[in-house]
């Protein structure tokens, strides 16, 4: 009787034990995996956030520097700088410009246009009157 019980119990206990271990390993493994994944997602979220911040800062810097560049290029600022540095730069007089005929149209170049044009500066002429003296 005792021998029979001993032999039976040994055979019966091993299988459930293995099952229990496998089940525990599955549950434990998936739990650990879940936590690891969650941690990874959180860490990636933090990285995304950090990169978003960096991108935002770069864009902000870009805007600030674009604004500073635009300010430096303001015509008044350029004129003021040319005056301060005494570069002798002055705009050309109408009499100092020559309008060449437009080769494509075969006529004179159009003069009435709101197309942006770059202001011209000419250097003070050496040894004589200034280029901006009004010819009469």
């Amino acid at each position, binding site marked *: 009787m005792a021998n029979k019980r001993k032999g039976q119990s040994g055979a019966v206990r091993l299988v459930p034990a293995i099952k229990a271990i496998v089940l525990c390993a599955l549950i434990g493994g998936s739990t650990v995996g879940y936590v690891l994944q969650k941690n990874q997602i959180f860490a990636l979220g933090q990285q995304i956030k950090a990169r978003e911040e960096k991108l935002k800062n770069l864009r902000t810097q870009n805007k600030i520097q674009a604004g500073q560049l635009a300010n430096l290029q303001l015509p008044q600022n350029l004129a003021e700088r040319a005056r301060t540095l005494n570069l002798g730069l002055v705009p050309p007089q109408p009499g*100092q410009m020559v309008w060449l005929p437009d080769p494509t149209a075969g006529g004179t170049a159009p003069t009435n246009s709101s197309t942006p044009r770059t202001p011209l500066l000419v250097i003070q002429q050496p040894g004589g009157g200034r280029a901006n003296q009004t010819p009469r």
Partner: protein
Amino acid sequence: MLFTVLLGLGFLGLAGVLVHIHVRCHEHYKEVADQHTLRMFLREPRRGEILDVQGHPLATSFPVKRLFADPSLLGPYYAEVARAVAPLVDYQEGELIQKLRPTLRTNANGRLVTNSFVNLRRKLDADQWQQVTQTLASLRFPIESARLKRSQRDFFTNLRQQSFYGVDDYRREYPSGKLAAHVLGCTQEKESEVAGRAVTTTVTELKGIDGIENWLDPKLRGVRGWVLTETDRRKREVVMHRGQSIDPRPGLNVVLTIDMVVQNILETELAEAMKTYAPESAVGIITRPRTGEIVALAVLPNYDPNNLGTNTALRRNRAITDRIEPGSTFKIVVVASALHEKLVTLDDHFFCENGHWMYLGRPLRDHGSYGDMSVLAIITKSSNIGAAKIGLQLGEEKLYQYVRAFGFGQPTGITLPGEVGGLLPSPKLWDRITITRIPMGHSVDVTPIQMVMAMSAIANDGIMMKPLLVKSLQDADGKTVTQFSTGPGTRIISSQAAKDTVTALKTVPTREGTAIKAALDFYTVAGKTGTAQIPDGNRGYLDGVYVSSFCGFFPADNPELCLYIMLNKVDRAKGGYYGGQVAAPIFKRVAEQAAQHLKIRPDKEGSYQDALATSTNGTTPPLVRTP
């Protein structure tokens, strides 16, 4: 058995409670949970820029930080923190101490809590913000020399890292200061509440209150974005629980027809005139007659939109809101109308009564004792009596119709707020001498913008254009979204009548005319002076003060620019008050510089040869090819 039943009932009750909490009270507890974890971060849109025709910024938005403080994290050290931070954020030390002093209040649950939100309303640029964070990080308190408990260490860490925080915002800037202030207008901050799911946030937004900033506010403003997300205990965003993330849509950039350089020229010259003649105000407008584009619009005294100050009267755009009796510049209307109706020709003569005419018992005077004068000479010499007689020939109804057709008595439709239509009563309301007063620019109130548009119509071959101030709208990448134009315009007088009027106007800036000082070296000018007395309510006219003006265009036969210069309330005692004395020289100086900048082709023959001849060393002046 009894134990089992009791246990079963217990579990059943517990299940009931759980069902109650999770099903029936779901919404309530969700709201409570959301309030603790959900956060809505607003993303402010960048307000669009206002650019001149060449793309130079006239108004722009710079990224800054709005500064907030959390007094609950400062504890008893608020004074030390305030002393360290105040100089960096342009606060008086005492004022900042007051603001940061923790105060107690009772919250919705009846518990005493310390205030945790102070809006310091300072827009800090990137450098200032960095200084603030560095200063806070380097703050050391005497107590820290001793060994601290963990809670104390946490307190000081929070104080350094979180007691001051910045929220992204923009500061509106006008890089050129006062330049074109009346065109650009200004903005003002307005607070409003934005309600989101479980979260309501107070925001401060910029609203245009004047000028283009006001007129195109909905286009400039952009659309706010937001992020609905959860934060952890340290107020860091938990990105994986981010619900909504909507990017802000920046406002559109507005490209004006204004040329910043020409605007600067105009304002500089008007400022000089303000010093010399000390008028109450000065207005200058420059248009392109063919398109109706406004190249420059200046009003003095002006203001700095970066710093509004308290004098709101300075913000009034006199070019579109002030009604004046224009004086003799208005003669162009009656003469052009009579020429169009073929009632007169330039060679027809009128007797100008030797400078003094009693009409219906009321005197009408001329500047000189003129006898017989042609219509052309009436314009050249600016004869009031001659103009009145042409007006009589035209008749009340027709005169009224033409004055209306030239755009008087109604707003021009310029895209600026506050424009008035002037005052042009119906002929039914005229007394019998009104018909002799309107032709010389009295008994009618006009705005400077109306006057320059009327002159532009004559320059433009008799076609009236609407003023165009906004050229296009661009998105943030500079791509044009909307292009504006004034359309073909409306013909108000025949081409021949316009040409004849121009012929007459060309005689004004000559030795025989009233405005020799408006003549240009390289361009033929057509224009008209105006010197008007100023009405004093119903008591007649003010003594000794005048509206002095000159309105003209050049090159006369191929007009590129039309300028109107007006000085209001010029004091006779200051040395000059006639339009030809005061306004014409300003016209000349502005026109010369504007023509240089815009490279307008001279129309006077031999100007280049003249330049060659006067070149001292015989070298050819620089050749410049225009596009």
